[in-house]
């Protein structure tokens, strides 16, 4: 059951990562769309990603919260026994970033609400970039910790 939960959590995180990266690339785009892959990656209707990002963030965070007890009972004590402080530390940061992200969702939704206000462009840009940063952090940390046994001899 826990493995199925981890896989679903990981898959939702992949969708979230893709959506928020598209949106982040689009707010960073400065030049008119050209034909390279990177240009096309950012040449999307960024506002249309907002609702899926919010929904995916919520569902992924809830999934993570449901998996957390197993981590607290089995994984964390093992990391402590093995004195892997850095691994515990990156997870601590992951939970804090998830919390900050949850709190940011109301203003993020408001900033991207159509019709997009011109005077909120900077707010939209930085909120999206912060959200992208914390989603990337949490994704990478989650995967590294999940595979730690194979990564660290």
């Amino acid at each position, binding site marked *: 059951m826990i493995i199925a939960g981890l896989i679903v959590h990981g898959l939702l995180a992949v969708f979230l990562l893709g959506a928020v990266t598209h949106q982040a690339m689009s707010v960073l785009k400065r030049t008119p769309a050209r034909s390279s892959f990177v240009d096309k990656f950012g040449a999307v209707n960024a506002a249309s990603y907002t609702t899926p990002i919010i929904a995916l963030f919520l569902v992924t965070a809830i999934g993570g919260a449901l998996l957390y007890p197993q981590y607290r009972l089995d994984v964390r004590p093992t990391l402590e026994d093995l004195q892997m402080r*850095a691994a515990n530390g990156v997870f601590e*940061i992951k939970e804090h970033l998830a919390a900050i992200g949850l709190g940011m969702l109301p203003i993020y939704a408001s900033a991207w609400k159509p019709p997009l206000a011109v005077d909120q462009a900077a707010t939209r840009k930085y909120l999206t970039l912060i959200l992208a940063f914390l989603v990337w952090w949490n994704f990478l940390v989650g995967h590294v910790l999940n595979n730690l046994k194979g990564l660290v001899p």
Partner: protein
Amino acid sequence: MTSVEPVSVRASRASVESAGRMIFSMVFAVSYALCFYYNWPMFAYYPQVREFHLSAQLQTELGPPILWYGWLATAALVSAVVAVVIPRQVAGRLWPGLAWAVPAGTIVAILIYEKRWFL
């Protein structure tokens, strides 16, 4: 018969709504950081016995606690109350950049504090 809302009324309502959300998000970031720094969970969850306890006092006989749920709940309650209590006119006068600057500053503060794990 349908009534058409004037654009100015709609914009004003959106601005008021946005101000409330901005207050919530700003206060949430700060209050969450304070909750975890000072350990103010609304409750603690003990997964080994599957019990919630309102007391933040550590009860070692119940196994390891999860305080994160409690910190989230405290921060959500505090920010919701502040977002409701602060007058919209006051909230509307705040610099819009605070919406991202406060969470960004909180993240930096958390990263600085958590570097203790890597020393």
